[in-house]
């Protein structure tokens, strides 16, 4: 079917995307003329203070909402993870993953084995029979990751997925996410929203800084740090402090 393309198509591309909520005097411009291209297999972190429209942007890419103006193209299947795992509480961890497989019409006979494989990929072998309330926050978020992977997504959208976790669990899940991407092995594209600058530098191939009210792309930082990375290593901390300074400058613009 596919022939070798000279220029590879972008996984996600936004061209002049704006989003306005409401009308007239009370209208709020959440995103203003955002243009962004994410290559296949790239890990892009979006960072910004409150009111930068990070979550709005992900909803638009996920197709949960429509932009007021501008174009969004996404190649392939999209999955979305939130700060809360959003697992179905009446289903076991395994059944939650299986439901995602079922939704994309995986034959019944394959579902159980495939779900077990995915739970294994997030190091939850043996927890398939547990219900969400029996798992810790970090484990639930890993089940949610397994469920997202079960959607066979090409693009994984993550909306502050580790924001509600303690620091130690979060750091371990960063490593876990790196490993899972290697393991999936098809160049999973990730668009990751966070307000934690170090987390963005630890994870991303590129960090995109957004302004607040309205959200605009104000700066892009490639992250030239070799993997595996550590969140507390010097190169990560150095770049993070540069980005933090720029972010603070942006935030103080609103105070004066």
């Amino acid at each position, binding site marked *: 079917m596919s022939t070798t393309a000279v220029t590879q198509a972008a996984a996600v591309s936004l061209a002049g995307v704006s989003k306005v909520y409401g009308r007239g005097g009370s209208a709020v411009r959440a995103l203003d003329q955002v243009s962004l291209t994410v290559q296949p297999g790239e890990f892009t972190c979006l960072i910004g203070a409150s009111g930068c429209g990070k979550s709005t942007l992900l909803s638009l890419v996920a197709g949960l909402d429509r932009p007021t103006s501008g174009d969004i193209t996404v190649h392939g299947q999209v999955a979305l993870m*939130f700060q809360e795992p959003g697992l*179905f509480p009446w289903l076991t961890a395994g059944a939650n993953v299986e439901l995602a497989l079922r939704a994309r019409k995986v034959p019944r006979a394959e579902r159980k084995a495939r779900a077990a494989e995915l739970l294994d990929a997030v190091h939850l072998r043996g927890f398939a029979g547990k219900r969400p309330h029996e798992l810790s926050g970090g484990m639930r978020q890993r089940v949610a990751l397994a469920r997202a992977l079960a959607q066979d997504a090409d693009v994984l959208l993550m909306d502050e997925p580790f924001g509600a976790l303690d620091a130690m669990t979060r750091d371990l899940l960063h490593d876990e996410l790196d490993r899972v991407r290697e393991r999936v092995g098809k160049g999973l594209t990730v668009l990751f929203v966070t307000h934690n600058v170090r987390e963005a530098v630890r994870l991303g191939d590129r960090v995109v800084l957004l302004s607040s009210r309205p959200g605009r792309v104000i700066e892009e930082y490639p992250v030239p740090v070799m993997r595996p990375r550590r969140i507390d290593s010097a190169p990560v901390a150095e770049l993070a402090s540069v980005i933090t300074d720029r972010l603070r400058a942006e935030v103080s613009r609103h105070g004066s």
Partner: protein
Amino acid sequence: MAADTTLAGLDALELAPAPGRVDAGERARRAWAATWPKLAAVALVWLVWELIHLTGWKKFVLPGPGVTLTNLWEQAKTGLLWHACGDTVLRALIGYGVALVIGTVVGLLVARVPPLRAAVGSLITGMQTLPSAAWIPFAIILFGLTNASILFIIVMASAPAIANAVISGVDFIPPLLLKSARIMGLGGLGLTRHLIIPAALPTFVAGLKQAWAFTWHALLTAELLVLVAGEPSIGQLFAADQDQTDMPSTIAIMIVILILGIAVDGAFGVANRAIRKRRGLA
């Protein structure tokens, strides 16, 4: 590799230790703790009743507990009471079953189709406030003194409660779960089956219990007035006792109704606890 074991260690630390096995002695102790207050309550009612009886208030029409319970025992031996209970409970189950199907389907449609909700949403709540007795003349004119009349009255009384339970169950589904389902690509029947129905279940079961009360009220009201020939029922026994001013029998049958009510309530309690436990709410 080191990170893996750290993660596994963290997982092990974060999980609550498994609850210890409950031995027979502990189980007996718990059963007793749950039982004795109920026995005490029964004893208290008996005592107050006996005391009222001893004061001689309305002594020609109000029997004491001893006479009443003897009467109940005598009735229980005849078979007529069992036959009547059987008929009444069967009617309740059939009527409730029909109301369950109609109420659930209507509730799901109204909850998921906005124009339908605008059209009949408040009508359903309105029908719930209509006393079941108000349907009796309507039913008798339409169906005569038949079982159909009684079933009709039950369905009209309890289906709106069931529909309302479905609607509020659907309304309280967390938006995050709906978003997750949409992202997964669930829609239409799949969405209804895998998200809407299970997510609405706790509210639904609470509503089912209320609907059962409506069923039971409507049924006894209907049976008192819609006397179907050749089919003894609790309502019919009641009507006969009233005609013969047979107070001991009347109270005996009230006790039977109370016991049936408590038994059904217990069944709903079990279902409710099972659902909450499954979701980590109990």
